[in-house]
């Protein structure tokens, strides 16, 4: 599939929408509808926050009758399960981001800048693992991983997270290279730079922000992964999603809610930071991080 890339126009654009009346003018119904929309999307976080600060938060309490920090104390307990899970989750997610980038940079550069026979097939081959459900991959790979001694350990989980992460990072990287003005590399060579110098001083600087987003994407794919970790990790690799599921099966809603929020927060913070740095255009990529 082709992602629609924003067309580049050199024409300066007005700061405001030419089709709307004036700068910053929003019709009231539109503003209300937007507030409603955002309210609905953010609403599910409300019971989580309430429950995480409550003790004995039973129907029909809307606001807790007994506020309590117990759940957060348990979740944030030093040397507790949450921090251990966070450490494992971050270790795995960072490894996945880095490794997938290492594989994605050469492949993405080729896909983004060259036309060759078999390109469509390669693109399709890369897209399929992104889309085929994790449960199918997990079940199929589990026995192979067991035989290779990779099941039940962090390396195996990293490897299996690479299956959905790498193709997406490759496709994103291809977009980054396709949009970068790599002709500047030739310009640098013409100005006397060696191949390595051209890479270092020109190419890297051109693609670095895009690659950072691609890597972040790989990070997020791994961050939320449940089934692959469950099956391949065999329960022994306890990432935050695994911990959250185990906690949810225990029925302590306060701790479940606090764990869920603890798990969601880093991803949301990363998103907001990135949107600050890169502008909202780059964020389409987050769509696949699930």
């Amino acid at each position: 599939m082709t992602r629609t890339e924003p067309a580049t126009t050199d024409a300066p654009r007005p700061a405001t929408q030419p089709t709307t009346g004036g700068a910053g003018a929003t019709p009231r119904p539109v503003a209300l509808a937007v507030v409603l929309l955002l309210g609905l999307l953010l609403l599910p976080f409300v019971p989580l926050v309430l429950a995480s600060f409550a003790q004995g938060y039973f129907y029909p309490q809307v606001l807790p009758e007994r506020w309590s920090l117990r759940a957060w104390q348990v979740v944030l307990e030093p040397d507790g399960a949450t921090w251990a899970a966070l450490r494992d989750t971050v270790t795995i997610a960072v490894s996945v981001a880095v490794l997938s980038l290492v594989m994605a940079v050469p492949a993405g550069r080729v896909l983004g800048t060259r036309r060759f026979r078999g390109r469509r097939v390669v693109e399709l081959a890369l897209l399929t693992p992104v889309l085929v459900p994790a449960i199918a991959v997990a079940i199929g790979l589990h026995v192979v991983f067991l035989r290779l001694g990779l099941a039940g350990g962090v390396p195996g989980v990293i490897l299996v997270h690479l299956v959905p992460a790498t193709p997406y990072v490759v496709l994103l990287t291809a977009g980054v290279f396709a949009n970068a003005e790599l002709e500047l590399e030739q310009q640098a060579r013409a100005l006397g730079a060696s191949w390595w110098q051209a890479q270092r001083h020109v190419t890297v600087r051109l693609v670095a922000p895009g690659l950072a987003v691609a890597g972040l994407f790989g990070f997020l794919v791994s961050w939320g992964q449940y089934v692959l970790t469950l099956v391949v990790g065999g329960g022994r690799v306890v990432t935050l999603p695994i911990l959250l599921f185990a906690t949810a099966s225990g029925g302590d809603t306060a701790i479940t809610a606090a764990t869920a929020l603890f798990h969601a927060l880093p991803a949301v913070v990363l998103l907001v930071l990135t949107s600050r740095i890169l502008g909202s255009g780059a964020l389409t990529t987050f769509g696949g991080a699930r």
Partner: protein
Amino acid sequence: MRTIPRSTLLLLVIAVVAAGCAQASSAPAAGPDPTDWEQVRSDAEGATLDLHMWGGSTEINRFVDEVYGPRLAELGITLRRVPLADTADAVNAVLAELEAGRTTDGAIDLIWINGENHATMRQAGALHTGWAEQLPNAALVDWEDPAVALDAGLPVDGAESPWGSAQFQFVHDTTRTDAAELPGSYAELATWIEEHPGRFTYPAPPAFHGTRFLTQWLYELSGGAEAWADGFDEDAYEEAAAELFAVLEELRPHLWRGGETYPNDIADLDRLFANGEVDMTFTQLPAGIGANVEAGTLPDSARPFVLDTGTIGDHHYLGIPVNAAEPAAAMVLADLVLDPELQTAKLDPANGWGDGLAIDVERLADEDRAAIDAVTAGFGDLALPPERLAEVRLPDAPPELTDALDRDWERVVRQQRPRS
């Protein structure tokens, strides 16, 4: 798409072949010998012990980490507790390892296990046998007691060592259901359900509490637990099950959500109960619901009760997979948990758990017995008196029975198809 590069196909073939070659062929190693306990202790030193256990209860998790962890550390063993959403996941993991030819150095050293999971692993030859009775502390266990020696009717054969005991109890809320109108038998429960439409449900089997709830009902319909004392009888089952599922079908519309859906596990049921969606839930802890009330997952006004016709009491165990990487360390922990001091700590809901004893009080020194009595005295009305529990205790059913119940329930209740 028609031209898949031949190289891609080649890669797939390589992948499959590579996986096949890696298959190990060594036979399972014989386990350590617990009669030479010194040797076991020294083998265990420096090990990292992977204990796989249901991890849904923060309190139990914490108890394991904070009570056993330091004690094992003193013995040079690092405890790594692996939380499971379902014990079957671990059973399955061991079986998958064995299927893949991984007969040594497996991921799991010790599993918290009983009932069907025990039966499954035994059937597959996936547990070390013959070690449990040889543990030093095994002397404190009454191995003559069928409730210990038989796990769901299946002889334990030293393949698992008891950790604690439990007994099924119902829980009601005194603000909603008066103690006077509580049912004393399943027959009365059925009436109660009809009179309180939408206020009762049970976890869907094979969830532990759901299966046990139905097993007890089947007992009552088939003339009591004694009917199954000699093992599973196909015809007797057919007769009783026909009656049971007919009753369930009749009651279906009076269940929560019209019997269209059931809670996944006891945690779901507790939540429904706590929020007032249903009027009953269950517990397994002899020390009652003190820990739940403390954590705020059940209301203060909740109280346990049992049926006069009896509820099943059983033990839960620790088992060592045949391919465990650290069987010696596993034995050390299985022995440690039987230590009277630690058994007492586990019984006390103040420590977060409230689990029943696995050891025989008669075999204890006086001071240990006094400590236990002190804990029991402090249960209050959030637990039933031990005598009351003992009075109605029934043995667990043979695994064939629970298997058959699970299978039939799936078919008849869930899929609405006739029992085959």
